[in-house]
């Protein structure tokens, strides 16, 4: 079927373990995975930034980048080149070590988050049995990088941005976690492959009744906030804090923050797609055998990336439509609306799961 990623990874794995001794084979696998991840990172950076610019342009009755390469497709390559050439300044009053460390922490967190994501059928780096928990816990580490950047810059704008970001991510973890929990309750497993497997006969958003739909909406809002995207881009808030925590960063160090933001969007959307939209599972409708059969012919990787990019588009759509919230309203939204709703919602989902009312 299409791109048989399962077979490819399995055969490489077997070949490595048959040819070399296990430790060397493991090392080679590490290197292969690292190369894959770095390639994916740079590709995602290029594609997502281009996508954002085109989406924003079309929503703003503009054309968007169209100068570099055919239809402006190499614009981000040119931009990256510029950022690499630029001087990576460290301000005089900054805490040099932390200042230079912060972008890498944000970046490493984004890389580590790639581990449990299932990109296609059988194509996963690490099928850990606490996959979703791993995602939820590691993703909150990135706030340390942001706080570090804000503090080490020795700049008041940066500090304010970092503090905002800290308050924001800590609060929105809660409702993102509860939204994830809604699906976990129905699935009964934290392992990503199990969650996807449980959607064999229909995605959770379809068979989970209203609670899952509400959880999906809350998840979208919460992850938008967690990735510091507008309308929750308190940490940057360019009309208030010039650029927030990365005011003092330039050149490649700034690019790392920028890249990490986009990769984080990809990751949270991938997790959203996995939980609610069935990951790589094709769209199956009840007993329409013919339709289901046709859907099965579309490769699993395309299903996964299609769903993920759809969610990314929705998040971009938010950004280019809504004004920014104020910091206290942002926290109000979380503690007064999202959290109570998701708690009641979780209760409902639990009832549904226990009574077995879901399809």
């Amino acid at each position: 079927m299409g791109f048989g990623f399962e077979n490819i990874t399995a055969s490489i794995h077997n070949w490595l373990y048959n040819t070399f001794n296990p430790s060397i084979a493991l090392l080679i696998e590490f290197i292969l995975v690292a190369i894959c991840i770095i390639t994916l990172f740079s590709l995602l950076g290029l594609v997502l930034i281009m996508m954002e610019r085109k989406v924003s342009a079309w929503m703003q009755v503009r054309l968007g980048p169209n100068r570099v390469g055919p239809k402006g497709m190499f614009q981000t390559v040119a931009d990256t080149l510029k950022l690499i050439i630029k001087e990576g300044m460290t301000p005089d009053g900054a805490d040099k070590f932390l200042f230079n460390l912060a972008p890498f922490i944000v970046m490493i967190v984004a890389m580590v988050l790639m581990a449990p994501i299932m990109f296609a059928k059988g194509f996963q780096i690490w099928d850990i049995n606490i996959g979703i928990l791993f995602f939820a816990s590691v993703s909150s580490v990135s706030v340390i990088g942001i706080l570090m950047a804000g503090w080490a810059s020795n700049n008041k704008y940066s500090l304010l941005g970092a503090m905002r970001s800290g308050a924001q991510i800590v609060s929105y973890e809660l409702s993102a976690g509860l939204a994830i929990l809604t699906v976990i309750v129905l699935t009964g497993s934290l392992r990503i492959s199990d969650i996807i497997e449980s959607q064999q006969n229909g995605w959770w958003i379809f068979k989970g009744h209203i609670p899952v739909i509400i959880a999906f909406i809350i998840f979208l809002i919460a992850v938008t906030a967690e990735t510091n995207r507008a309308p929750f881009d308190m940490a940057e808030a360019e009309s208030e804090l010039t650029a927030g925590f990365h005011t003092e960063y330039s050149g490649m160090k700034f690019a790392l923050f920028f890249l990490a933001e986009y990769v984080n969007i990809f990751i949270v959307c991938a997790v959203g797609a996995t939980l609610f939209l069935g990951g790589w599972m094709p769209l199956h409708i009840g007993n329409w055998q013919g339709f289901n059969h046709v859907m099965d012919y579309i490769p699993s990787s395309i299903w996964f990336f299609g769903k993920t990019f759809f969610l990314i588009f929705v998040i971009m759509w938010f950004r280019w439509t809504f004004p920014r919230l104020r910091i206290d309203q942002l926290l109000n939204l979380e503690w007064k609306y999202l959290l109570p709703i998701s708690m009641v919602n979780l209760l409902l989902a639990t009832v549904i799961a226990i009574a077995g009312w879901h399809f």
Partner: protein
Amino acid sequence: MGFIRKYITDVFSAVKSLLKGMKLTGYYFTHHKEIITQQYPDNKDTLVLPERFRGEVVMIHDENNEHACTGCTACELACPNATIKIITKFDITPEGKKKKALDTFVYHLELCTMCNLCIEACPTSAIKMAQTFEHSVFDRSQLTKKLNNPGSKIREGIE
């Protein structure tokens, strides 16, 4: 109970207002004919500026290389920024009389604010505004221009 109803209607009306905005941006996202961008250097050939557009002051010369400037300095006086400097000379007319005439019409584009007062002031309509707008040069001295063509002289019959 009233409190909960208010809470729920609040949430719904909020979501509705947000969806309304998203509908509009979604409309623009899918309707590319609404795009208003003009691709400037590419459309240079088809770019038409209105005839009243004020780009820079030029002097009108006809095919015989004759202009209508008498050197009366009305424009120089009308200019708020001392953009124009008129240098006059004395021509000898065929009758042997001395007559004041224009020697050099110096125009400082770098000082000009395109206010059109000089054109209004000119009694003989010798100067006009040109529809040019790409004025950038590498050397500032190129912005100081001599408006009357070399060898040009005043048209017959203009006093």
